């Protein structure tokens, strides 16, 4: 790729989740030149792994459709996928950015016809489903993937399977020789929309995640509820595939805890309240929410009130102390003290969902000097967009991304004003 695709008038957005997409589009629709770099094979980030949004219970792909149409129609915006930023040097006004483009092994000729996928049989864990399901090694990452292009997994490159995929493609789109590329670009401003990752639940020892199959995380539960997910939208517990009938939601799993994440991850209360809806809509199953404080801020309170009115949902004010396994049934016992009235309990549930905390994805990334993070790794100041800047829900992430876009535009404005003056 040519170096001159970007200049100090270009805004680089790192991360193609909802925050990155929004920041990039908002700036581009103001007439600015924008490059959006995403590490994965498709845009959408974690929102594409959500089944529905709180509190409207609407589908993330609805907004994505609008955003994709905006992207397709905008000539100021260039999208790079499978592109990882490996180094950013310089300062505001003149950054140099080094990016690694990983081979997709499918070029732009791809029509997404699916012939390559039909030709291969080996399977890989489906990343979109947090590995809960599988996909072919030649795959379209999502029915709404952007770019709408297949991916050949590196595991079949150099194998007979890989060759079969190439032979099946009638337009010459499969390129098994594709190599990793490194490019360097200039950018006047950089927006960090690097997003979040779920806290490693296995670190919360007493909850047995990783040891007890029926203890899962809230992000995994989201995939179970999604008709496009590994269980076709049925809430089946991992140990035996039985439908979950008595689900426990444990709040602050990893959050508000000095041993794990000091901060409150903000979204988890609402996420669990939403997920109780999945439970009550699916069957006659029950939900129990174990919580410290229900943080249903502003009009989300309306949603909380509705869930409280649902007879299938009960609330226990308690930080669950530990979980033990009933080997025979695969059920779990939740042990703790209900602080309202101070009762000790050992409650049985057939599925436990940990409302897992948010950690910034930028932890461990090499950031340029002028990007400051707090002690949890969230990016302070205006150039962090979305959950890279603070634990935020989707709406607030987009708000933050829109704001970051204006900070970047102001940077570019300052550069051109200075250049004109000199």
């Amino acid at each position, binding site marked *: 790729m040519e170096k001159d695709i970007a200049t100090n008038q270009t805004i680089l957005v790192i991360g193609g989740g*909802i925050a990155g997409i*929004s920041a990039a589009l*908002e700036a581009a*629709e*103001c*007439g600015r030149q924008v490059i959006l770099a995403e590490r994965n094979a498709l845009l959408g980030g974690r929102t594409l792994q959500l089944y529905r*949004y709180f509190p*409207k219970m*609407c*589908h*993330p*792909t*609805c*907004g994505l*459709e*609008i955003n994709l149409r*905006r992207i*397709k*129609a*905008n000539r100021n915006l260039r999208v790079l996928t499978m592109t990882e930023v490996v180094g950013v040097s310089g300062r505001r006004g003149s950054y140099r950015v080094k990016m690694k483009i990983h081979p997709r092994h499918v070029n732009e000729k791809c*029509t*997404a*016809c699916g012939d390559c996928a039909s030709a291969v049989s080996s399977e890989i864990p489906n990343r979109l489903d947090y590995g809960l399901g599988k996909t072919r090694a030649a795959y379209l990452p999502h*029915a709404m993937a952007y770019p*709408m292009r297949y991916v050949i997994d590196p595991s079949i490159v150099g194998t007979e399977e890989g060759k079969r995929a190439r032979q099946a493609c009638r*337009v010459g789109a499969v390129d098994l020789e594709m190599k990793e590329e490194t490019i360097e670009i200039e950018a006047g401003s950089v927006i960090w929309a690097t997003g979040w990752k779920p806290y490693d639940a296995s670190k919360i020892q007493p909850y047995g995640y990783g040891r007890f199959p029926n203890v899962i995380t809230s992000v995994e539960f989201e995939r179970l509820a999604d*008709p496009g997910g590994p269980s076709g939208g049925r809430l089946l517990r991992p140990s035996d595939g039985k439908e979950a009938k008595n689900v426990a939601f444990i709040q602050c799993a990893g959050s*508000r805890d000095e041993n794990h994440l*000091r*901060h*409150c991850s*903000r979204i988890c209360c609402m996420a669990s309240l939403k997920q109780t809806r999945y439970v009550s809509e699916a069957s006659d199953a029950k939900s129990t929410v174990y919580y410290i*404080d229900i*943080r*249903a*801020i*502003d*009009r989300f*309170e*309306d949603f909380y*009130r509705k869930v409280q009115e649902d007879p299938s949902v009960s609330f226990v004010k308690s930080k669950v102390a530990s979980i033990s396994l009933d080997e025979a049934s695969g059920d779990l016992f939740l042990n703790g003290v209900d*602080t*309202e*009235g*101070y009762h000790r309990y050992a409650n049985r549930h057939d599925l436990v969902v940990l409302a897992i905390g948010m950690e910034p994805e930028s932890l461990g990334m090499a950031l340029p000097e002028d990007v400051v993070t*707090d002690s*949890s790794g969230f990016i302070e*100041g205006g150039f962090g967009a979305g959950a890279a800047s*603070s634990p935020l829900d989707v*709406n607030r992430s*987009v*708000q*933050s991304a*829109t*704001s970051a876009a*204006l900070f970047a*535009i*102001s940077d570019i*404005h300052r550069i051109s*004003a200075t250049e004109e003056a000199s």
Partner: protein
Amino acid sequence: MSEMKTAAYLCSGCGIGEKLDIASLSKVAQREGKMMLVKEHEFLCSAEGVGMIRADIAEGVTHAAIAACSRRAKTEAFDFPGTALSRVNLREGVIWVVAEGHEEIRQEMAEDYLRMGCAELKKMKMPEGNPGRKLNRRILVAGGGFSGLTAALAAADAGYEAVIVEKEDHLGGHAAKLAKRVPFREPYREPVDTGIDALLEKVGAHPKISVHLESTIAETSGAPGRFFVKISGPAGEKIEEAGAIVQASGFSGYDIAKLPHLGGGKYPDVVDQAGVEEMAKSGNFTKKDGRAISSVAFVQCAGQRDPEHLPYCSGHCCATSIKQAMYFKEANPDTETVVLFTDLRVPGMGEDFYRSAQEKGVIFAKGKVSSVSEAGNGLRVNFRDLILDEETSLDADLVVLATGQVPNSGVNIDLPEEGQVSVLNLNYRQGRDMPQLVHGFTDSHFICFPYETRRTGIYAAGPVRRPMDMMQASVDATGATLKAIQALENAALGRAAHPRSGDLSYPHVRLEGCTQCKRCTVECPFGAIDEDEKRYPVFNESRCRRCGTCMGACPVRVISFENYSVDTVGAQLKAVEIPDEFSEKPRILILACENDAYPALDMAGVQRLTYSAFVRAIPVRCLGSVNTIWITDALNSGYDGVMMMGCKHGENYQCHFVKGSELANYRMSKIDDTLNQLGLEAERVATHEVAITDSARVAKMIDDYVASINEIGMSPMKGFG
């Protein structure tokens, strides 16, 4: 415009050539579609295929029908600026969804789609952008509090002018009355300087910012790019022109006198959080009688999360009480401070601030306060201790009621009440202020799009949009300002704002045919259409979002867009070949919302789900744009049924044009008369809510509908159309 030269390009790639007879499709395009040029290609989206089309365009082709994949696929490849384009969906819409063994009807489906694409193409004109456009790089900011100041500065720093209108004789709003604020960044340990003086200084010194104090907005007229704002101030009236508006009209504190059971308005030592700020600012932490305060009780959610008062949570009050408890601890560490709460809400890093207060000895007790009464020289707070599960009380010298934010939204245009004072005084036909979403806030209804305003070019920011703290208000004001900049830049180019961003088409009206029925002016979801003195509609194109609701509303069909009109859709549905009554081949028309239902149909194809080949789907901008003439035309020409697929309506509506699907539903409820006149069954027109994830459901819905039509029997109207 030069003479129309049409061309059709047929792709045989992706299996289209194997499943369809391309040669006879070519003939259809020539003979029936009357395309002047028809070309086949085995890989149309390739560089070579696209190059071929480009070469033809250079040779004079003005209108091109691309018969290949869905309009949602290969959009960037088939991008020919200045050329009218129709996309004939042979892949996702035909070969991927028709089950094997139906070769004949599959070919018929493809041929119909081609006829439709050619018919649409010939009715299309190239949109040229609206003529009422103007560039004005100035943003008017209504409100000079923290949000308004932040917005003005953000605009000015990006190179735009800002004009602040503030009703008080000074800037700063509530923020200027605070002693300190909650920190925005680490360390989250102590209250910090509000920063308002520094902000005021920057605003005062910025050459691009001007300020009107003691001023209100007497009238706002115009549209993005050309707003005229009449400002009424001490020196009389002045008109400021602006390209866009940020409404940062802020909030008022909930009146504590409405909470007499908590002692509000009854006892002098029951105050709200603003009262504590006053004390802290003066450094005078005493009771009204001048005695020292040795104990303070903070009552969280006072008149909040309470259906009798404010049903919502204002979000900032927990952190604010924590900050204020720290004031007392700072002044005198021996002061007892107790925060009574049901859920303590300090999201994100606010948790550190909470911890810091605990370290300072602030006591947090989970309790629901029932009343505040006098006890001796002090006050008694009666509450249910939720931990011990018993009624109890505590005594305090001062009781602070953490009341909520009431938005200064102006007039509720849906439910106007006396005493409401307008903020913007819009001279719009649909009302003087922004429509409110819920609880009086002027928020967007969309999770993915917090700034999806219903008054184009006007963006709410800060606590008028949603309850919020200062940190959020700073982010929000900056975000809203970006949207204002975007609105004025796009208005100058004649382009639509979100969600049809960049669209250059705009509504044209043939006023000579207009009957002044006012449906368009009433139903426009964005208040874009006013009325002149003769009650004719006046279109403000820059306010228009191009949804077509006016086109759907117009009973005499005088409203159209260049590339989307009563004719472009009408011609498509009439181009379908209707087999005779005895063929046992029903024809069902689908009108599908292009944002949700049409993608759901497409993705049924991507997932290789199958549905009946008897349907013919036309994407529409919104079900609100569906004119009933299309339905009657379809029934008259012998269609056996019409399925309308739109977004969810009701409280959690999904329609980005607000009421499109609801309006369609309503209009279709009136179509029974027409059906009766034609002697047709009510089932022949059906409306459905379809979400974008409904691929499997929609496929089944189609098959079920076709089955039900087969049961009713073929339409008797065939052959009369």
